[in-house]
């Protein structure tokens, strides 16, 4: 593994997005992240639910307040649901795909040893009339490993993790497309922020948490449990925000390359948002305000209501084509999010509290 100092955000993105890890099966990615966090943090630990913590010790007088940064390490994928005669595999999804983006795509089946497979398609020559006018639902899709049924049954138990297999695609303007930018790009922001805070010591303690099971959908489990463990005085989730795309309404997206997207709404503590904006201005950094009228849909939702309530904010990385195999971000935006967070956190005074005492 290369020393972190020579790794750019693009290097980190290529590496971190390549790691598997659907909700509930984050072990392999967690092991790699512990190594990665080890290159930038003062202390690395893993909690009982599997989330990985990277600590930066503050320079303020103990007991110091504590800031929690959260980005989820799980990414959407599939689990093997059934094996059909002929060795074809049916899958169920963990996290929400649009099944219309799946036919013809390659996947990795994380059996031992791993196997390549494709979502099978019927060639136009053999299709019935009108067949191509109807989308294929996930329950009708199947995977073909190109291997015999016996081998598949021996090596691929039901429940085996399956992920889209797409190595990172380099686009113009340094842009990078890969499955799992949601939210491995956020994990890279954590790594870069810790790296910056190492030299720019904050007075607060900062704990960057790569959380588990954000995409499972019931609860942002890793964020909720980490927040209960750490009782932070402040929490910020780093996640992807919808990038500008044809077909999306104005207000639902932020342009790629426009800097951090700072959420606004009930999930966001106004004082943190104002301070983040002030940091962006101090750094002469572009940013956008992203309206989240009914919640941010990130780890911050669960951090906010943990313990006796935590002031939270969300820093978003603009990302096109979310929940497809070509989630696209601009590494420059990742850098900016890290610089913004490092600036904000190192400016935090020991006296800052969100509780207002009115009388």
């Amino acid at each position, binding site marked *: 593994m290369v020393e972190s100092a020579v790794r750019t955000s693009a290097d980190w993105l290529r590496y971190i997005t390549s790691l598997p890890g659907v909700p509930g099966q984050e072990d392999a990615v967690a092991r790699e992240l512990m190594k990665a966090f080890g290159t930038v943090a003062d202390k690395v630990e893993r909690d009982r639910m599997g989330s990985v913590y990277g600590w930066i010790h503050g320079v303020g007088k103990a007991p110091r307040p504590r800031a929690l940064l959260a980005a989820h390490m799980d990414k959407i994928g599939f689990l093997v649901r059934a094996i059909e005669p002929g060795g074809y595999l049916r899958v169920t999804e963990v996290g929400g795909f*649009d099944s*219309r983006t799946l036919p013809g*795509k*390659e996947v990795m089946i994380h059996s031992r040893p791993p196997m390549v497979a494709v979502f099978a398609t019927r060639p136009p*020559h053999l299709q019935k009339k009108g067949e*191509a006018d109807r*989308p294929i639902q996930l329950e009708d899709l199947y995977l073909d490993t190109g291997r015999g049924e016996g081998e598949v049954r021996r090596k691929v138990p039901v429940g085996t993790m399956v992920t889209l297999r797409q190595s990172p695609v380099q686009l113009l303007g340094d842009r990078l497309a890969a499955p799992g930018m949601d939210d491995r790009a956020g994990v890279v922001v954590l790594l870069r922020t810790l790296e910056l805070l190492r030299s720019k010591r904050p007075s607060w303690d900062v704990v960057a948490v790569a959380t588990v099971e954000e995409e499972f959908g019931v609860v942002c489990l890793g964020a909720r449990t980490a927040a209960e463990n750490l009782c932070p005085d402040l929490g910020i989730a780093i996640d992807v925000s919808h990038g500008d795309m*044809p077909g999306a309404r104005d207000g639902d997206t932020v342009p790629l390359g426009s800097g951090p997207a700072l959420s606004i709404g009930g999930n966001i503590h106004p004082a943190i948002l104002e301070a983040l904006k002030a940091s962006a201005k101090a750094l002469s950094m572009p940013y956008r305000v992203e309206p989240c009228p009914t919640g941010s849909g990130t780890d911050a939702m669960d951090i906010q209501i943990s313990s006796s309530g935590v002031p939270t904010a969300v820093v978003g990385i603009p990302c*096109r084509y979310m929940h497809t195999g070509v989630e696209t971000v601009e590494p420059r935006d990742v850098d900016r999010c890290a610089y913004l967070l490092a600036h904000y956190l190192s400016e935090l005074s020991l006296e800052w509290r969100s509780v207002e005492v009115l009388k």
Partner: protein
Amino acid sequence: MSANGAPKFREDILEAISNAPGVSGGEEAIRNILAEYARDKVDSLEVDPMGSLVARIDPTPARRKAGGRNGGRRGPHVMLCAHMDEVGIMVTAVEKEGRLRFRRVGGIDPRILPGQVFRVGAGGLRGVVGALPPHLTPRNERDRVTPADDLYLDIGARSREEAEERVPVGTYAVFDTTYEAWGTTRKGKAFDDRAGCAVLASLIQRRPPVPVTAVWSVQEEVGLRGATAAARRVQPDVAIVLEGTASGEAPGAPPDEQSPFMGKGPALTVHDRTLMVHARLLSRIEEMAKRHKVPTQWKRPGVGGTDAGRIAISGAGVPSAVVSVVCRYIHAPAAYLDVRDAQRTVTLIWHTLETLRKEWP
């Protein structure tokens, strides 16, 4: 897999031409690779006016002499044909924001396009077909297939100028798929018809028993065009078209719709939408399969069409047949074939040439 006295199937050729781009009308890269493999093995090598690669190769002098005892008989002039082109897309417009609009070239199911990665042009440029995230997609939209004309390619450009400079209108793009091997399975793009191209290139590595003109044709996927012209030029006595054809295998499909099967030998065509296979030629091929223990199967009759349909009606007519390597998922980003089927096809065609030398018609 033993070649059974026939030339060996050259997997290195298949790998090279499967990975290279060659959409109908833009076959140069494929042609250049095949020309290198053919150059030292053939008596003449030409690129015809449409871009098809045409190689003429005669039997060895010893064979010609042996034929001489037989009343100067050299055997029929056989045209072996496989098409170089693959299905893909062409960039048709560059939009204000630097996005590229495209049209399909050849039969591509629009449902495989969203989220697909393409290799654009001859350089290493990549583009992705964008798709709206499920979070932003209205429920009723998800019941609808997005028409290909509404899709676009994102190369990361920020402006029309930047995009136009890198990708002029008319640039082709192919699926970004890399050839891979496991067991006897091979995965790659464009096996329709790079499988046939590689079988043909393998065959001409050795001097054939009869005069052969090998044609790697262009523009099959847009109307069997290259072979139509090439056949007039070559004027063969017999033609055999080498194809990568579609398997019907799928879980739960009725048995009669599953055939042909990957791994069960070359598929022989009886008829398709373009051709009634010459009965006598077909029975000679079957006979050779039996004699040399090459397993064969029938391609599902009545579907698809190949260059043979045009070659057969060329000039005064050419007795024609089609022999195919069975592939799963043709016209999609990643197809599969069984490499044993490719060798079996080489073996079967070689022995067919042998028998044609002895007797034809």
